[in-house]
């Protein structure tokens, strides 16, 4: 469905003067992107999350994206201060945040302005705007409100002013606390959502608070609903397909944390950093209940070293971080590679370099994940592509780490970290868990690095095991773990550590092609962009274009069979959230153009001309952006 056309067809129906008293129009939609924004602290996030949860319960496809200001408490009514949630509701399964917003409910005009300026709203987006500012005692505020309102109207937006403050004051003395539930009621009315489910959601959200809090919030919800029923002349319905099996609704960081729990890992060592922290927050709350420990170390180096110590002592351990912390861990990661200590390192990528954009998503760390740490330090790199993947990737990572005695880097990003999506409730399997570590006596004569000549694998020794005494070292060492600078021995060790990647690669399946097996254009992605890419591919395929896509979740090592796939397409390109030079730039040509990370890797490995398109604006890559890129690429000759 073409969203723009759809929204246009709707808008002609909805934009009747609301006092006309005419019956409401009810429009059935395939999907809608709705957002709730306020100053931070006014509860727009809670409103948005609740809306997502209610729609998910009804069986709608849902993807929620957090709108987070960069500062903890930006000044009130500031353009950069929007805090809230963007929720994509769909009739079917929703795999990404979708395109620009179709309907927004804003608590003041300034936060709204920020969203408009960064191009987050569709050209004819419906705007529900808190009207209280019109009567403000400060003439500057009134002026700014009126000016913004008029500007938005003349820009073609459908602006509806709603007296949230006024209505809420009838029920509560401080409307700042509670307006969000009024807004939820308005949205429940607009999207024809079950009010009873909304009441239950409120009870769940405020479950730990006094009953009076729940009652008061339910009253605000109902008031919002009533107001919208009486005053708005439109309603939408997005048909739901009720799920047949239980679904869980969580964000990517919660999924990572649950995956850690499920993998049987016992220790997570970390140092707080955005956007990885929320995973550790949640884990800190639940891990101890199953005998686990979250250790907040003095810094990321300490966290990584702590994790390495715990892994060395017999338990595979995880350390979680984001960009800057990942850079700090690099030396220790090299030690784990050298010592062949199983270790899982999660990097929830954010914008870089340096402190970069802490709350924004980027896919800028692929190369440092693969090649980081000095010298030849082969490690496994996996990148979950959905929220569900975030959960299972931790189980896979732990298994690979312990089977191959390797470092496994898991690359998530800020987009997955804070987005929510329902997926089938995982069914527990014993095989997820780490086996108890071996403490038995080692066979006489077995060496601590008795590398298999074909696979590079050696049995892991754990302190406490009789006959296994040796000193693990980050220095070049022989099979006995003796420090050795002999050129042959150094070669032997590096070879063995490298072969393990090849051995793992032999066990991997070629990823399936999305679409036909051959055609005019193959688009390749990795990590969180999967939903947007596949949606775009589907839409251009529906128009008859021979486009397919391929998505990598294991990037190092790449499975066999990729080159054959690339060769079946006339053109190949990657879509990535990292930097690549624009060939249109004046001084850029083929001799100096920097390609996106994956494109560069694929070019080098397969000697295939892989083009790329990338963006590092810190915004999620949207299906319609990808669509535009694909159509453009198809036009080129």
């Amino acid at each position: 469905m073409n969203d723009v056309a759809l929204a246009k067809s709707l808008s002609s129906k909805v934009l009747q003067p609301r006092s006309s008293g005419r019956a409401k129009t009810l429009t059935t939609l395939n999907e809608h992107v709705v957002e709730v924004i306020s100053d931070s602290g006014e509860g727009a996030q809670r409103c948005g999350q609740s809306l997502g949860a209610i729609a998910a319960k009804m069986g709608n496809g849902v993807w929620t994206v957090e709108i987070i200001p960069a500062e903890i408490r930006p000044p009130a009514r500031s353009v950069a201060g929007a805090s809230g949630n963007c929720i994509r509701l769909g009739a079917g399964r929703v795999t990404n945040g979708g395109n620009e917003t179709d309907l927004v409910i804003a608590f003041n005009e300034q936060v709204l302005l920020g969203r408009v300026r960064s191009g987050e709203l569709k050209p004819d987006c419906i705007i529900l705007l808190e009207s209280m500012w019109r009567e403000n005692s400060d003439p500057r505020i009134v002026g700014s409100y009126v000016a913004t309102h008029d500007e938005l109207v003349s820009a073609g937006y459908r602006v509806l002013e709603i007296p949230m403050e006024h209505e809420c004051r009838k029920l509560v003395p401080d409307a700042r606390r509670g307006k969000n539930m009024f807004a939820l009621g308005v949205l429940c009315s607009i999207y024809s959502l079950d009010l009873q489910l909304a009441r239950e959601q409120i009870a769940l959200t405020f479950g730990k608070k006094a009953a009076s809090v729940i009652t008061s919030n339910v009253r605000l919800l109902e008031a919002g609903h009533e107001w919208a029923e009486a005053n708005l002349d439109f309603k939408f319905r997005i048909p739901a397909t009720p799920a047949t099996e239980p679904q869980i609704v969580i964000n990517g960081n919660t999924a990572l944390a649950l995956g850690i729990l499920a993998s049987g890992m016992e220790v997570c060592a970390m140092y707080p950093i955005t956007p990885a922290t929320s995973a550790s927050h949640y884990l800190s709350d639940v891990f101890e209940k199953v005998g686990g420990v979250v250790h907040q170390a003095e810094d990321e180096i300490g966290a990584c070293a702590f994790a390495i110590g715990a892994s060395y002592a017999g338990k595979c351990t995880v350390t979680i971080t984001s960009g800057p912390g990942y850079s700090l861990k690099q030396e220790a990661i090299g030690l784990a590679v050298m010592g062949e200590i199983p270790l899982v390192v999660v990097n929830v990528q954010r914008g870089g370099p340096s402190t970069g954009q802490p709350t924004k998503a980027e896919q800028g760390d692929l190369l440092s994940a693969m090649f980081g740490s000095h010298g030849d330090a082969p490690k496994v790199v996996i990148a979950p592509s959905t929220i569900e993947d975030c959960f299972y990737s931790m189980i896979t990572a732990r298994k690979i780490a312990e089977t191959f005695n390797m470092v496994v880097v898991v690359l998530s990003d800020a987009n997955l970290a804070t987005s929510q999506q329902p997926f089938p409730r995982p069914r527990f399997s014993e095989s997820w868990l780490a086996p108890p570590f071996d403490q038995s006596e080692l066979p006489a004569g077995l060496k601590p690095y008795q590398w298999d000549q074909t696979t590079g694998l050696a049995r892991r020794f754990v302190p406490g095991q009789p006959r296994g005494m040796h000193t693990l070292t980050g220095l070049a060492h022989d099979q006995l773990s003796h420090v050795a600078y002999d050129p042959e021995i150094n070669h032997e060790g590096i070879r063995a550590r490298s072969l393990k990647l090849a051995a793992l690669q032999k066990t991997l399946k070629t990823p399936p092609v999305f679409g036909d097996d051959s055609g005019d254009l193959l688009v390749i992605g990795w990590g969180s962009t999967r939903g947007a890419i596949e949606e775009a591919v589907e839409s251009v395929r529906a128009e008859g274009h021979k486009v397919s896509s391929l998505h990598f979740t294991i990037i190092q090592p790449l499975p066999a069979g990729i080159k054959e796939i690339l060769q079946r397409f006339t053109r190949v390109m990657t879509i990535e959230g990292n930097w690549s030079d624009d060939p249109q730039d004046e001084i850029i040509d083929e001799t100096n153009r920097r390609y996106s990370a994956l494109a560069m890797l694929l070019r080098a490995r397969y000697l295939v001309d892989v083009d790329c398109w990338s963006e590092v604006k810190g915004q999620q890559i949207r299906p319609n952006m990808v669509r535009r890129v694909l159509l453009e690429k198809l036009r080129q000759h």
Partner: protein
Amino acid sequence: MTIAATECLLRMYDERYGLEDYQGGVPRWCTGCGDNAILAAVQRLCRDENLRPEKMVFVSGIGCSSRFPHYMKSYGFHGIHGRALPIAEGIKMVRPDLHVFVNTGDGDCCSIGAAHWIHAIRYNMNMTVMLHDNQIYGLTKMQASPTSPKGLKSNTTPRGAYLDGLQPLTVTLGVQNVSFVAQAVDWIPELLYDILSAAFHHKGFSFVRILQRCPEWLPNLFDPWMKDPQRLLLLHGEGGLRISPALSKAYQNQQQHDPSDLNRARELASVIDPIPVGILYRNTDVPCYEDLRRTGQPRSHDFIKAGLEAEFDKFTVWPQESGSRTTAA
């Protein structure tokens, strides 16, 4: 079956280890290097405590002194520069059954690893930490270290070190949760042994600063103290060291010190000359981080499964909920 097992147990407890059972690789330190004396004292301690070699882990960073684990016959972890302590913490957290020792140099501990050092004191995990303080970077060939005395000429301070040396003992004693601090010198083996033994027996983070000679780069650094026994101040008494009559004869500058007296310990620690030797501080009441953090929960599969399912429940949307309702539309 039962008999065999008992026999096996008996044999296990009967087993006595000799010094040779703790000898790993042949030490490659320079002749006269104080690290040799520390190794000898540690091996004696292991023998006297009859420690099972597979139950010990020696963790180190990088430096001459950090070669220590290679020369022990036990498990060892020769890590990266400055990070011995967090590695040792990770080990101790999951394996309280292992004896964890740390060997670290003055650069390793007090410079690149300083943040870890401060926090390790505060965590107070049960391990024995030996600071091999030769007041110089040995392995990298004679650069000033944070503990180098002011005026010391080195390759990076050819006209003499600019700053006063950092005092590891005062730093350690200034950190919350400090539980054991002692000072030894490598050239009095008897005291070195006694101090390491006390450190080993203390449950908590036992920090022993050992003044260690580096004849290669600073052959005369400790001469004034070695030549004049009066310039050492031996701390002894109830709860501290017992000094043998023979030693008392040679080192007559002695002082009674109660290791539970933190203020006095801090005063003593700030004395550079004479060098205080002995146990400055001991507090057996400070909890160990690993004990605080270990929940004692069994890690059975059923238990983990139950925990996981309880979490899933919190986030689950059950199909019947949506099926049983009609929309408000």
